[in-house]
């Protein structure tokens, strides 16, 4: 009963278009003042203690690191490297778009920024080479979403915060699904390029490959700093994030010289802006999940599911469905923070691995960014290419379908996500 009330209030408030953080907070307040006897003091305490966890501090650090490297210069180097590796296959430039998106998105941490950076550099070249605009836009819009699966990923940190899962294990778990997904998107691109006989690039020599790799390696090393640091135990995830921010600063100002010292305050400010927004959602989502837990809602949902005889298969199907729906309206971080605390207890009861659930949710977010009516990546790609949303929808469908197939695989083959962290002894 109270579950129904809480979610109705939340939905109604959200649909007025107010910030998600505010609607979460107001839902808690409304419920608190009218329906329940939770002492106000305990909520006030949540206002303070909500974000007082050292793990959460990884988010601002990762955002800062990403913002230092979210630069056209870095994108250009990564594209050159990707083209030298896969450019000579059918649809060469499009394939290098997939690879470049995967790498750049992992480094920059932002999907829309990836679509813009890679798209605005690569698409003119593609069109010039004789690719139709639609094809290029479809590849870039979908591949740009790869970033939240390949570590370091902020959405994974959000999941870890909501469920107390290990950040390191989640990051490791994302590696193989990320590679498989990039490979599948690449295969689809290759298949369609071969069918329509799109152009290939001349094969690059090994010297060329080595040269472009050397250029892009500084930026790509960020992934190694984070993963290596966490895996070897040199850093905690938050420390790794802070180190990666320092590293990114060093690379972009002193090695690549894309940025002068004068521009650094601007990067700091925009990172602070972004992280404050996310931390504000976290604060309010913590209050929200506190109320949910206080009303025993996850428990009720669990027992209801078990009563109805839902097994893991039906449950995961339902989770996918709900998340894809939510992906229509909200951005990944909010979805993660709202749904993870609800879904997690049920999943644990059904014996689903927490890491597997996390990866599954992340892949869902990824699909949500690319599918109509309101995929953020579609909008960004539309702004970039001046194609309409309807036209882009047609343009992305082969890759979107690939992503959905991949989502099915991740959902029902848990070993894809759990194998690497298990082998490395992280879970």
């Amino acid at each position, binding site marked *: 009963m109270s579950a129904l009330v809480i979610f109705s209030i939340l939905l109604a408030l959200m649909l007025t278009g107010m910030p998600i953080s505010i609607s979460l907070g107001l839902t808690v307040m409304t419920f608190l003042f009218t329906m329940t006897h939770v002492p106000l003091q305990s909520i006030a305490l949540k206002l303070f203690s909500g974000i007082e966890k050292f793990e959460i501090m990884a988010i601002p650090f990762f955002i800062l690191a990403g913002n230092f490297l979210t630069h056209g210069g870095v994108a250009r180097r990564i594209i050159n490297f990707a083209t030298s590796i896969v450019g000579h296959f059918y649809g060469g430039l499009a394939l290098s778009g997939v690879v470049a998106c995967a790498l750049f998105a992992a480094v920059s941490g932002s999907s829309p920024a990836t679509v813009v950076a890679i798209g605005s550099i690569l698409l003119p070249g593609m069109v010039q080479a004789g690719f139709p605009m639609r094809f290029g836009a479809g590849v870039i819009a979908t591949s740009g979403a790869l970033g939240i699966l390949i570590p370091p990923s902020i959405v994974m940190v959000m999941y870890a915060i909501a469920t107390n899962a290990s950040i390191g294990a989640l990051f490791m778990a994302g590696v193989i699904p990320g590679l498989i997904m990039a490979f599948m998107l690449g295969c689809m691109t290759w298949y369609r390029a071969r069918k329509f006989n799109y152009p290939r690039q001349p094969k690059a020599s090994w010297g060329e490959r080595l040269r472009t790799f050397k250029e892009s390696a500084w930026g790509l090393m960020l992934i190694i700093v984070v993963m290596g640091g966490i895996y070897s135990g040199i850093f905690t995830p938050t420390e790794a994030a*802070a180190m990666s921010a320092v590293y990114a600063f060093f690379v972009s100002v002193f090695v690549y010289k894309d940025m002068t010292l004068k521009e650094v305050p601007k990067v700091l400010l925009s990172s602070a802006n972004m*992280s404050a927004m996310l931390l504000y959602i976290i604060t309010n989502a913590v209050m929200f999940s506190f109320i949910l837990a206080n009303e025993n809602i996850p428990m009720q949902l669990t027992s209801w599911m078990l009563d109805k005889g839902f097994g893991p298969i039906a449950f995961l199907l339902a989770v996918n469905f709900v998340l894809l729906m939510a992906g229509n309206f*909200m951005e990944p971080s909010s979805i993660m923070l709202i749904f993870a605390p609800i879904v997690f207890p049920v999943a644990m009861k059904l014996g689903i691995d927490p890491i597997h659930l996390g990866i599954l949710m992340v892949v869902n977010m990824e699909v949500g960014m690319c599918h109509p009516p309101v995929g953020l990546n579609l909008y960004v790609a539309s702004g970039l290419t001046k194609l309409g949303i309807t036209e882009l929808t047609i343009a992305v469908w082969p890759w979107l379908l690939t992503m959905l197939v991949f989502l099915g695989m991740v959902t029902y083959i848990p070993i894809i996500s759990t194998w690497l962290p298990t082998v490395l002894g992280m879970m």
Partner: protein
Amino acid sequence: MKFLNHLEEWFVSFLMAGAVLVIFVAVVHRYAAGLPIPVVQDWLLTINLGWAQELCIIMFVWMAKFGAAYGVRTGIHVGVDVLVNKLNVRTRAKFVIFALSAGAFFTGLVAVLGFDFIWHNGMHYAVYNVLGLNDGSLFEGPVTPDLEWPTWAVYSAVPLGSTLMCFRFLQVLVRFIRTGELPHHDHSHVEGVDETILSHTLDEETEASEGEGTAVVKTTHGEDAKEAKA
């Protein structure tokens, strides 16, 4: 007003940079102290940086609270605007006004709750002590574990930040009523790429390709963009 804007921006940027530096120094210190260098090692071992984590958390909490207020000004707090944007202009305006007022109401409420909380958590004692009004009936509030700062001072980020945020919501509301404009944050802005190049090249391209069909041209994409920029 301009002064407040600059102060806010300067403050959050400073906290961001400070937190990175604190953690960086703490990590470097931890490993440097393990190196067997005479004198230096002894000196390093005398420094205790156990408080670094706590300081980092405090800096980020302050950054988050004031950054959230700055975010209202830049329009970064996103909501679900699919339905609202489908409405006609007048009805949409009503919804926007409602949403902004709700934001101001909530942040105002949090400011009051937060202030009440820190007042009973040691601020009452501190203020009365300074003013010489303490008659012995008040108790000192708790302190943070490592730095031993009074928690009320640390937590005052919540009421202060929330008050500022409430003010920003009202400011945006007034501006919206007057001019019909909302701040809008561009999530897809990237330094160092020129987005106008693209539409440019494409226009030329469609014109050119109409003439010669789909000729396969060897591309030098990276240099293209650079040249156009220069």
